[in-house]
């Protein structure tokens, strides 16, 4: 009824293997993209951009990155916060060393630098697996935060160790700094998310993605059929860290504007991104995005309802926020252990048959 597949014929392989094979899905996707790019910027305010959309888009990038590593390649990582810090500090050094460099290149080069760092910290994955790898990446998290705190070169010897993003622009539109408009920030982050999500989707369904999944499902079997674990695991670490580094650079330059490594990129950030992909759905691009939405928007929404609408005391509301978000996480994981993406997939299956399921 809702999903009318009648007459939706595929005559080429390309149309059969496309991301949204059902016409209705495809139109929905085009509609959301069009709405996000054309309509939202007309109405976006400082609050909506800085408190809701920008953090959501940035966390979505980070979640896709971690999902590539954990969800697609099966390498558990707790170093996300540290890798985001690499992206942020790389962006800071690039912005201050090359003032004329476009912010887009700053962000992309920061991602590339993080990819290199990620590959180095991915090396232990060749020898250790599972929880032991998680501990090894945890070491990366602590080491990187310690490094950026310890070596003054990374924060240009400022007295406090804080890094602040100067104003930088792309095509003449300011994207970072205090005078950047909410539209510019939003569109910049949205464009990056769209490009990277498209990249991730196409990587994961191609040869590289299949080799990642082969390693994830059974590494010995994968090795026997000719998948090289070294190359596969390190590309997963590299690509994942690229995404996470881009997210870190955006997080610092576009969203916060000034960060201090221990507070902004601590271990809690690693867990936050891990929760996003677990709740959203491991091994799903859509799941990463919806997981990020859940973890970023839910607390803001609850706060606005409890403090703004009901007029509760701020501390009680803050405590309740933890309780409610925690309860929702448990609830979702009981109802659907494979995450929100799976919930959506099931809903879609049902809708395709509804109202005649048999």
């Amino acid at each position, binding site marked *: 009824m809702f999903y009318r597949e009648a007459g939706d014929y595929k005559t080429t392989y390309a149309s059969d293997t496309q991301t949204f094979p059902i016409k209705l899905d495809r139109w929905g996707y085009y509609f959301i993209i069009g709405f996000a790019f054309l309509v939202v910027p007309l109405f976006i*305010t*400082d*609050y909506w951009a*800085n*408190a*809701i959309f920008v*953090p959501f888009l940035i966390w979505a990038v980070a979640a896709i990155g971690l999902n590539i590593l954990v969800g697609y390649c099966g390498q558990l990582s707790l170093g996300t916060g540290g890798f985001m810090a690499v992206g942020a500090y790389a962006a800071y050094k690039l912005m*201050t060393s090359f003032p004329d460099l476009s912010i887009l290149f700053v962000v992309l080069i920061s991602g590339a630098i993080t990819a290199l760092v990620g590959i180095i910290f991915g090396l232990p994955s060749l020898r250790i697996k599972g929880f032991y790898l998680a501990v090894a990446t945890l070491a990366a998290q602590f080491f990187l935060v310690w490094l950026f*705190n310890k070596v003054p070169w990374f924060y240009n010897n*400022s*007295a*406090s*160790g*804080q890094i*602040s993003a*100067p*104003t930088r622009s792309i095509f003449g539109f300011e994207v970072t*700094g*205090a*005078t950047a408009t909410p539209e510019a920030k939003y569109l910049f982050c949205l464009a990056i998310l769209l490009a990277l999500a498209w990249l991730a989707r196409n990587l994961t369904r191609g040869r590289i993605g299949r080799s990642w999944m082969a390693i994830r499902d059974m590494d010995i079997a994968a090795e026997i059929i000719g998948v090289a674990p070294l190359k596969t695991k390190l590309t997963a670490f590299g690509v994942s860290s690229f995404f996470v580094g881009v997210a870190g650079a955006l997080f610092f330059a576009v*969203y*916060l*504007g*000034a*960060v*201090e490594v*221990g*507070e*902004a990129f*601590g271990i809690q950030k690693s867990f936050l991104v891990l929760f996003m992909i677990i709740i959203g759905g491991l091994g799903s691009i859509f799941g990463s995005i*919806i997981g990020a*939405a859940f973890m970023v*928007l839910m607390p*803001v*929404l609850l*706060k*606005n*309802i409890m*403090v*703004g*609408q009901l007029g509760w*005391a*701020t*501390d009680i*509301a*803050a*405590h309740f926020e933890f309780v409610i978000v925690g309860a929702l996480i448990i609830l979702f994981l009981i109802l659907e252990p494979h995450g*929100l993406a799976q919930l*959506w997939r099931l*809903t879609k299956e049902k809708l395709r048959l509804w109202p005649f399921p048999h």
Partner: protein
Amino acid sequence: MKLTKLAAIAVAALTAASPVMADLVFPSLSYRTGPYAANGTPVADGFADYFTLLNERDGGIGGVMTKVIECETGYSTEKGVECYEATKGEGALVYAPLSTGITYQLIPKVTADDIPLHSMGYGRTSAANGKVFSHIFNFPANYWQGASIAINHILDLNGDDISGKSIALVYHNSAYGKEPIRTLEELATKHGYKLTLLPVDHPGQEQKSQWLQIRRERPDYVLMWGWGVMNQVAIQEAANINFPMENFIGIWWSGSENDVIPAGDAANGYKALTFHAVGSDFPVFADIQKYVVDAGKAAGSGDHIGEVLYNRGLYQAALLAEAVKTAQALHGTADITAGMMRDGLEGLEITDAKMTALGLGGFGPTFSVSCENHGGPGLGAVQQWDAAAKSWSMITDFMTPDMGVIQPLIEADSAAYAAENNIEEGCN
């Protein structure tokens, strides 16, 4: 499907919260939760109670009611951004985030939005240079002045000669804790003491290794830049290794009742800096009791009145209220804007007569703010904890810091900021 539903609720939740204008709005970015709640709560209570008092007793300031909008940050910079964006549209006059990290983040934002920011005794020290930081105020004292006052106190105790002594700095490993390092290093070369740096990572519950090092090296004095749970743990650890408490000096953020009471008698003699008086022996507290507490309008649980940090929140509110009066007089209108508030802060002059009229005679030093100097004179005193009486007492007068060392540092740091952000010096 879920998303659209959530979005619909979110839109409803946000659009319904329409701003109420024609009030003097003071956003309070407080934190009553998280590892820093023990210290954040009394400050927020004091801040809110003073404005409640003004509303109840005087009908606001100059006939316009005040309104405090609280927003919980949990000391997190991300929530700080959310709070700033959520409150700035409601006519916010001045921000006081009570967090050095959030202050750093807001410095460019408030300047672009033409809203002043008052980081009293915290934040970026070089913001004292009003020529570069047009919208940031950090009077009456800042960290570098605090560091200098602590060293001055040690100099006084040692007959002005501390060459060869060793001093350890236990600090919160963040922008806040790192602030005094450069000043202490400069002072070390001047006075010839040996400085040991001992960072403690957020949130500060784990300090065994730092205190082990202190136990091994036995420095003559320990200074502390701590906040929240870190203070309590540090004082307990110092007691555990039998470090003489009178040689342990905290910054003004490490000197509240919450910090010393958990260590019990062992904390007796612990010293901390302060830039205002202690106790509730001032006429204003009688008014607070009468108009706020007895009327059931006290913020929070109402059990922090008279504590060090409560007094600090109250002192800040009093200074801001005075700045509002100054702005009202300067611009000839009672309903001031944030831009006028900035002028009021810049023209603020605190005299003994004004403080006495507020019921706060002798509570803080007199000072005046100018376009060039947003930091005030930086007077500070030392207070000491009496565990038996469970009270702080001032053991020195307000002292002046060594501005000969600090002023060049302020100039250099603000010049670096101006160069990085293409700011032209004002006040010409």
